């Protein structure tokens, strides 16, 4: 059951071979039995899930249910969920029970998709390993000595371990794609503005973008259909034409021009990862796609620009956590300033504090032009590189991450080395383009992700390419050995 696709689960529910309550109980049991091994959930919500499943079964019995109705899911703990603790992986919000639903939560609630719980994440989505969570690190189901990636590491690990068919994620600098790659699942970050940010706790608002994380491209297409859409309450939400992302999945990729940036295969890329990616390129060539060399000459500046801009936005966004209206408040504050500064010092973890301070510095008098404005100019250079590259290709291909999953603790003492783990994903966020991660093989029994990047609003094309690749490969169907019913590469 836990290896079935969203489409297969939908068929079982619609034909009443299984009820939503049965399916929900099945996944809740798996979470209870297996999550102790990987710590992918912060909160499990069995009562809410079963109540929603019962409502789903009523609609399924009536015969007019949506194809996604009754399929259990989980939300990254960054999405406000009415009446449920929404911690964002932080002590600051350990006592925060959200008083409203994020737009994405409302959208999926409206389809009666039972919420199994909230998944673990790097504190305030600032990290690439899910080790900075207040609730302890999530472990990679493929190797429990390894990180699952981050910041959406809980969602990625939960899907990879078959604890949930699908979970939401968010991607500010690679936080959907890198954990998807490290855990061997598929994930898509849509065009900036495609999915509402309302109720998604802000990190860096000009980059933050939600998206689905599931086993296959086809699963992601089904979920994207439910999640994309204009929302009045998000000031950067885009008005887009309604697209059925499943419609073009079976299109041929014959004649598709795939751009391969020379810059992706240089220094810093693990040679074994390069081999895996080149095998994927060969598979796509066999399907009739044409490989074209392209150049992204300013990509090496992207990490620096991102680590000015994202912390600058974070320093402003996170100023709301002051111990006054909700969240953590320090004991016995001696005055108002002590209340603010000590609540923040005690409530935030080390990496979050570092980014707030770095951001405050970058925005401070005397440094604004040299850092913030300069980084915004570099952001345009990085984006223009992509636009130029797309003149000679339809999609761009490369590795999601320079290495497979690294070990727990390996990079925690050196924030800068952690930042460099995102060197291939960050440029895409600077540009606001859609991109996805697709399982493409293994290095030392750890999954490797293929990165597909497209022009604005090309989500359907990315999903089509990934789906065609997944028709001739089975990397996305593999599950870790210790999980019953699984087999390893």
């Amino acid at each position, binding site marked *: 059951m836990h290896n079935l696709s969203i489409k297969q689960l939908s068929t079982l529910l619609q034909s009443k071979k299984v009820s939503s309550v049965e399916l929900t109980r099945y996944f809740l049991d798996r979470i209870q039995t297996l999550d102790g091994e990987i710590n992918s959930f912060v909160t499990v919500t069995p009562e809410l899930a079963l109540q929603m499943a019962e409502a789903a079964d009523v609609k399924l019995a009536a015969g007019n249910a949506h194809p996604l109705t009754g399929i259990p899911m989980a939300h990254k703990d960054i999405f406000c969920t009415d009446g449920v603790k929404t911690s964002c992986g932080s002590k600051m919000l350990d006592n925060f029970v959200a008083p409203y639903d994020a737009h994405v939560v409302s959208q999926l609630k409206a389809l009666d998709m039972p919420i199994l719980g909230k998944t673990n994440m790097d504190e305030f989505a600032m990290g690439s390993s899910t080790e900075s969570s207040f609730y302890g690190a999530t472990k990679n189901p493929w190797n429990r000595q390894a990180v699952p990636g981050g910041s959406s590491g809980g969602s990625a690990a939960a899907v990879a371990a078959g604890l949930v068919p699908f979970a939401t994620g968010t991607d500010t600098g690679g936080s959907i794609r890198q954990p998807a790659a490290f855990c061997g699942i598929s994930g898509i970050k849509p065009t*900036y503005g495609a999915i509402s940010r309302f109720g998604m706790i802000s990190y860096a608002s000009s980059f933050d973008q939600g998206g689905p994380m599931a086993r296959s491209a086809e699963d992601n297409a089904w979920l994207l259909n439910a999640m994309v859409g204009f929302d009045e309450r998000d000031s950067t939400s885009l008005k887009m034409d309604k697209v059925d992302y499943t419609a073009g999945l079976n299109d041929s990729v014959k004649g598709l021009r795939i751009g391969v940036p020379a810059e992706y295969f240089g220094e810093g890329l693990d040679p074994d990862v390069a081999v895996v990616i080149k095998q994927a390129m060969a598979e796509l060539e066999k399907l009739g796609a044409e490989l074209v060399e392209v150049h992204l000459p300013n990509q090496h500046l992207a990490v620096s620009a991102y680590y000015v801009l994202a912390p600058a936005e974070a320093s402003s966004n996170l100023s709301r956590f002051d111990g006054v209206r909700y969240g953590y408040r320090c004991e016995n*504050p001696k005055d*108002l300033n002590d209340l603010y500064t000590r609540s923040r010092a005690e409530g935030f973890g080390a990496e979050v*504090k570092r980014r707030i*301070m770095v951001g405050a510095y970058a925005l401070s008098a005397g440094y604004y032009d040299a850092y913030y404005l300069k980084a915004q100019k570099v952001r345009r250079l990085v984006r223009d590189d992509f636009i130029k590259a797309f003149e000679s290709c339809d999609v761009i291909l490369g590795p999601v991450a320079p290495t497979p999953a690294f070990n727990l603790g390996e990079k925690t003492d050196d924030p800068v080395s952690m930042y460099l783990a995102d060197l291939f994903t960050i440029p895409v966020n600077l540009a606001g383009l859609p991109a996805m991660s697709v399982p493409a093989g293994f290095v030392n029994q750890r999954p490797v992700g293929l990165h597909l990047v497209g022009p604005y609003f090309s989500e359907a094309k990315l999903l089509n390419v990934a789906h065609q690749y997944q028709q001739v490969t089975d990397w996305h169907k593999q599950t870790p050995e210790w999980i019953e019913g699984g087999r390893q590469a």
Partner: protein
Amino acid sequence: MSLQVSEVKKIAQLAAIAVEPAEFELVSKKLSNILDVFAQLEKADTGGIEPMAHPLDQTQRLRDDLVTEINLREKYQAIAPSTQKGLYLVPQVIE
């Protein structure tokens, strides 16, 4: 680049985060490492390039000036650390 203790104090003040004197050295070292990443930007030739704030160069959308939210004060204050008669309580500011 290496930050002085006085600079760390100023940054902590701007960020409204209390930093214990014993932490200054470590904080300074870690922040300085991150600022070294910033330094790579100096090499970029950005002459004539406009700063970019939004990927699609969009500006903030405006809406009609209408009331769209209902008052949910009691629900929102139920999760506050300290309230009284609909107000948030903080330590006394004025003697």
